[in-house]
């Protein structure tokens, strides 16, 4: 689609959306948000970009294939659980840092898990939408 202002707006919106998505992800443990919404906002950014500038550009921007992103996300989530298993003998037992960090609070495996969720959601949404958009040539 040949729309100057969509394309331009998208370029400015993209960082903003990504920033917000990370914000939602990191803060989710304490306020509304979390990996799922964060991931959706992040994918929104890329989908908008795909509509404005084409799927190919969006794929290039993303750099990693969305499908691989799914695998990585699942692995991250799985590892967060396995860390608990190794550390305490029970799967998914949370392991926490001893000190606080801003926004996030304490760092721990639940956050890692949420990051996994985030990555999966981005990967899933983009896999689906890109596949649909690229349609059936």
């Amino acid at each position, binding site marked *: 689609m040949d729309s100057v202002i969509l394309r331009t707006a998208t370029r400015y919106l993209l960082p903003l959306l990504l920033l917000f998505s990370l914000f939602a992800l990191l803060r989710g443990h304490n306020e509304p948000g979390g990996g799922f919404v964060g991931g959706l906002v992040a994918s929104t950014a890329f989908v908008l970009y795909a509509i404005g500038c084409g799927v190919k550009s969006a794929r290039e921007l993303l750099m990693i294939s969305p499908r*691989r992103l*799914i*695998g990585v996300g*699942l692995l991250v989530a*799985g590892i967060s659980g396995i860390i608990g298993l190794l550390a305490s*003998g*029970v*799967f*998914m037992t949370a392991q926490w840092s001893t000190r606080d960090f801003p926004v996030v609070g304490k760092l721990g495996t639940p956050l890692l898990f949420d990051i996994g969720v985030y990555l999966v959601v981005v990967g899933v949404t983009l896999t689906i939408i890109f596949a649909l958009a690229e349609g059936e040539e």
Partner: protein
Amino acid sequence: MNVLLLLPILIPFLTAVSALIFWHNRAIQRRLNVMGGIAHPLAGIALLVAVWREGIQATQIGNWPAPFGITVVADLFSAIMVVMTGLMGLIVAVYSLGSIDARRESFGYYPLLHTLLMGVTGAFLTGDMFNLYVWFEVMLIASFVLMALGGHRQQLEGALKYVTLNLMSSALFLTSVGILYNLAGTLNMADLSVRLSNGAVDSGLATVLAVMFMVAFGIKAGLFPLFFWLPASYHTPPIAITALFSGLLTKVGVYALVRIFTLIFVQDIDYTHTLMLIIAGFTMVTGVLGAVAQTEVRRLLSFHIISQIGYLLMGLGLYTELALTGTIYFMVHVIIAKSALFLVSGIVQRVAGSYDLKHLGGLYRARPGLALLFFVPAMALAGLPPLSGFWAKLALVRAGLETTEYLIVAVSLGVSMLTLFSMTKIWAEAFWKDRPDPDRPFAPLRHRRELVVPVIALAALSVILGIGAEPMLALARDAAAQLLNPAGYIEAVLRGAA
């Protein structure tokens, strides 16, 4: 012990994830498939041994005490089902190596296969109602994709119905779980058992809810009159997938029924379990008549799945130790026999070019080995002694006669006759009859090792399970005893709780 409970879930998970990451490399995926396929049943067996030796095993995910966190728990019944899942997984994983085309392999067949196994295993091991819903969904979505994978028209048409009707079931399941939480204030199955038995919950409403669950799981299990999705779809995907589905999916529905109707909803047995017997009878009869009416092997076998679900439900409806023993043993038996039959029919199709009895024939003379591989599980399915199906049938019949439920016994015996009839129909048409088109030669069987070894293994299991029925029956009896006396389960789960 913890690890033993989780390994059967984590192994297929890690297999699937690794395969997903190596999406582009079929060779690695095939290797992962075999490795995961072998590791899964081994983990299951380790778990079964642990449960057998040390009693019911339970662990709390995230170390949150029950009933607040999610419990993973294995009693003998769960552990048996986990072993069966692993076994079927391995069998199908190997069979797939020789029967799934390269294109499906490139599009995530192996990750999907192992995700399905993960979902099924999760469903067998979870001790939490909502978590059960989640695993059901994992299993369902994987099955949706597997069913549609390849995109052939028949597959899509079948999948359309399969998906829609299963989603109905999911919606009802979800609704029921929500109501359950409302009624009992907890989702932990052991805790639910306690709270429903100590009068904390209105028993009338609990019965209403029990019926809703019966319908929800009934759809998944393929009960009358809710089974439509099954004959509409099971014959459409590649046979390895059909075999896996037939072996596992409806059984998860039955598992769930057995679980909740022994552990949780036992406050109005006269009503709920009688209802179940009625449904069981209709399920058996309509299923087997459906099978009788078919001329396509896969469809015929699919209808049989329904019929056999009726037997499984019969044991639950009778609700005695012997009856549940029968159900558990029947489950193990039918998973093996039915999958074997599907896999054999896949070989038949590869050799003779069709699944349709009208176009088949002459295999008895030309491929006697194949005939034997069909005949053994077919007769097992028909309940011919001393194969596995007979003992299953005998246990149920005895249980039925002991509880003076003569009608259901009569029905079950009649249905077993019709089962025999339809098995001999395949035998007579595909094997005995001359080939209708003698000019078309039989094709040589390629990938013989991958295809035949799994079938031989299943047929052998069926024979072993029949002639050497006692160990499995004893195990099933102990499992049934655990089911009928949930105190042990409750104790194992809530042990750590206040």
